[in-house]
């Protein structure tokens, strides 16, 4: 079973393909329980995604999903899931941002589907998507400036957090 052992050690095939097609873009490849994961710095992110979309061998034409993550000491992260109808392959791209500078270039110009996903990630986690045409709150109230999915945010009603209502006795907000 040396082949299998080797393939566990080796990069996922799709990551090798991306590296071959886009040699100028530096990224780290790893595996998740479902798809291959490419980790890339925010500065190179737009170059990678442009390549993923426009290269014929890659042709990732569907942006499925954007996940925002609060990794506490490691800053805020975003994860993007892509799929290619032409080749039937899928990929996850992770963009870690340093603590205190949660800025990632917006994908709305490349994928119109990114619009609402980015608005949701921005309000829920506090990520900033540079170049987004409409950076308003989407699910929360328009003037609410809280980021409920951050780990530091307590599981509590928004009204209690804003001081409009009293919380249950004995619970610190």
């Amino acid at each position: 079973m040396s082949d299998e052992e080797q393939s566990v050690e080796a990069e996922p095939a799709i990551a090798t393909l991306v590296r071959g097609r886009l040699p100028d873009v530096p990224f780290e490849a790893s595996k998740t329980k479902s798809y291959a994961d490419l980790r890339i710095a925010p500065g190179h992110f737009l170059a990678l995604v442009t390549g993923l979309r426009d290269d014929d061998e890659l042709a990732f034409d569907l942006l499925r999903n954007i996940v925002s993550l609060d990794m506490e000491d490691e800053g805020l992260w975003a994860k993007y899931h892509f799929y290619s109808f032409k080749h039937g392959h899928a990929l996850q791209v992770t963009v870690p941002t340093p603590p205190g500078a949660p800025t990632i270039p917006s994908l709305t110009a490349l994928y119109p589907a990114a619009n609402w996903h980015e608005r949701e990630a921005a309000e829920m986690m506090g990520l900033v998507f540079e170049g987004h045409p409409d950076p308003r709150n989407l699910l929360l109230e328009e003037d609410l400036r809280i980021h409920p999915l951050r780990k530091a945010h307590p599981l509590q009603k928004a009204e209690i957090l804003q001081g409009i209502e009293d919380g249950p006795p004995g619970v610190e907000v």
Partner: protein
Amino acid sequence: MSVWPEERVTPNSDLDTVDMTVNVGPQHPATHGVFRMVLTVDGERVVDCEPYIGYLHRGLEKLSENADYRQAMGWWDRTDYLAGMCCEGAYVMAVEKLAGIEVPERAEYIRVLMMELSRINSHFMFLGAFGADVGSFGTSFTYAWRERERIYDLIEEVSGDRMFPTYFRIGGITMDLPENFESRCRWVLGSIRQGLEDLDGLLTGNEIFVERCQGLAPVTPEQAIAWGFTGPMLRATGVPWDIRKAEPYSVYPQMNFEIPTGHQGDVFDRFHVRLAEVYQSARIIEQCLDEMPAGRVLAPKLAKTLRIDDGELYMPTEGTKGEYGVYLMARGGTQAYRAKLRAPSFSNLSPLKELVVGTYVADAIVILGSLDIVLGEVDK
């Protein structure tokens, strides 16, 4: 001959019209839930549309990160509440894949059966409500509700609840099917096919209905993919993409079924794809009933408290509205570090402005109806 003076009937007359703002929703029957859109109209024409969502935001993701893996399942039923089984199925399968839990084969067959029953339920909701949107008022609703009631009875018999069954468990399902389930299910399938024929005759056989739907808000495959459309919305444009075939899960690889597609991606194609999908779901249910093996329905030796080490995954499933994906990240412990829902209605609704601008107000309601959104899923 028109009773109006000539200049009143010409749309592009020199009359100085003023744009008017019309608020639709959030409490409005035509928005199918608590969805609000602000239309700017020039006479009967829509010149701008601004959708507002979030009225049903319950913080699903935050709640799932603050409850253990088994407790959190109950929240996921309440996303696409027209097809609770599909939602809990997606969540449960994601946790199982993350934890490496094997599910008994009988449980897989029962899951697929229940998920397809839910899909039929959701599509009947669409067919009934969409008929009402276009103008058949009560009749399409009544036909659809007759069948939905029978499906709900089946789901209630199996799980004890109608809309939020919480029937699945991590590692299988709660309990085996009740006695005589097979014969009753087969009877319901016959009734479903009859109900579909009734609806097909009532709507597709109605010239006014077809006239109003054909050619309305057409979407090309390229547009659909760029906007992130999945499910019937994408298949209506002619792309035969179904996650049950493209990235199969559970026992779907053993099932024989086709992927209905449309040609133009207009409102009529979206309606027709969903109608055709119900027949395919009925086929899958019959195969499940025929081929279901005997055996246990819950994996043995499951941990009392489920702990999952480091790991992450994105689990896409074919929900009733499109790609219902669950992202989970575990970093040890009994709770997910991050849970994220990729809701199909969320992406299908986002280009509403592009679809609606330039049409009449009455058509805007029909276009919104054809998206088949469910706000529990959009707002999370």
